[in-house]
């Protein structure tokens, strides 16, 4: 039986050298690029906010008004309703991240960037916001109004 000769791809010396040289250059370029890419990634910000913050003192807010406070590295919104109830929510609009405000005339939460409106429980009621605002727990500790993350059941 006479088999056909198997076609061979000849690896010449030139090819081998080109491969080693090219591979070496590429590998070294990758080693230059890697630290640069890692450098570009900003280090994580340490959030010292914890889960609880004193948002204001009793008497700081007039009834039917709202105030922005710092909750960790993000803003929160504390509202005192006309009936004396405190409410606290995340102040970051769920649409594109602007900081919302309390509108006494509408008795609603309003984002000025794209006219998004939330009700006092944080539900998105009109405009572009896709999700409700995160609500926080509020309780009084003496004269201090303490806001904390909602305890997940």
């Amino acid at each position: 039986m006479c088999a056909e000769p198997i076609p061979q791809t000849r690896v010449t010396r030139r090819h081998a050298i080109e491969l080693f040289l090219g591979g070496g250059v590429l590998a070294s370029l990758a080693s230059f690029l890697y630290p640069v890419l890692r450098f570009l990634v900003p280090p994580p910000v340490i959030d010292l906010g914890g889960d609880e913050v004193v948002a204001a003192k009793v008497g700081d807010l007039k009834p039917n008004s709202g105030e922005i406070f710092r909750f960790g590295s993000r803003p929160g919104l504390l509202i005192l309703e006309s009936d004396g109830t405190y409410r606290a929510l995340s102040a970051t609009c769920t649409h594109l991240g602007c900081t919302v405000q309390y509108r006494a005339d509408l008795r609603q939460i309003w984002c000025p960037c794209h006219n998004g409106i939330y009700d006092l429980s944080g539900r998105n009621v009109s405009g572009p916001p896709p999700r409700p605002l995160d609500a926080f727990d509020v309780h009084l500790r003496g004269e201090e109004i303490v806001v904390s993350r909602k305890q997940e059941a």
Partner: protein
Amino acid sequence: MFAALYRWLDDRLHLDGLIEPFRHKTVPTHRLSYWYFFGGITLFLFMVQVFTGILLLLYYRPSANEAFESVQYIMTRVQFGWLIRSIHSWSANLMIFTAFVHMFSVLFLKAYRKPREMTWVSGMLLLFLVMGFGFSGYLLPWNKLAFFATTVGTQMAGQVPIIGQPMMVFLRGGPQVTGATLTRFYGFHVAVLPMLVTVLIAIHLFLVQRQGMSVPPKVEKAWAANPSLRREMKFFPNFLLRELMAWYVAIATLGALAALFPWNLGVKAEPFASAPAGIKPEWYFLFMYQTLKLIPSKVWIVDGEVLGILGCSLAGLFWVLLPFFESDKPARTRTWITGLGIFALVFMIVMSVYGYVAQ
């Protein structure tokens, strides 16, 4: 694929016409050819500086309250921040070194003579600007050493008769070195100097490209006597590939230096603290520093300091204009300019070493 892309571009932009001169460009080959590499290495280190400098800008904050902390943040918190900053510092120092080597090699190989006077002048201006980069960049981490180095350096500028005081106030952004000086130096370092250097590099390279590489007179004479000795290599790809290998060596050296000897940050500057003992300028200013220290405080009726600074400035100016002092009768001037070059080199080395070891 690249060939197709090239054809597409060439069809529209006639790239061939642009590349044509590079195809014909040749580099003379002789036993001193290696000195031609230093200009290219300096250029490469400058590119490293631009690149790492832009990276550092992402995290650096140019104010007296934050500068030191932001560099500390780069060195400790940002991933590979220590590497990028150390490469920037090491590359700065190596760039000044290779620029000096390039300058002296051009001097000793007689490459500054007609028709290359303008190349020499632009190169000398680049050398001064590079030292300006070193001086301004040194202050940016806002540490103690940098604070006093800047105080002394700008005070020296203030010694120049008549224009000295206004110049010092301009440099400092006020009568003292303060946060205002930091923002000014930052502006010089990242905007003014890069712009000037880029323009000058373009001129410098254009002149080199236009006039070709100079051949040292001795080699030229030997070639004229025996034309069969004349050797040249193509710039592209032969010389360029060799140059790229030199760049590879340079970046390997930088990486090794940065990894083994990361650059110190020092202690944060305090304007109302005493200057630390043993304070000295960077090595490339040491020879001037030591020379100034040796001049007595009064020479006849002139302040020693003023005399020293005027002397240094005049020497600098003379060096820039050096090609114009060489007369058309080469035999007479050739020797004294080479002699002067050797004297300057020895003087700089001796004074630097003396400055390094002296108390």
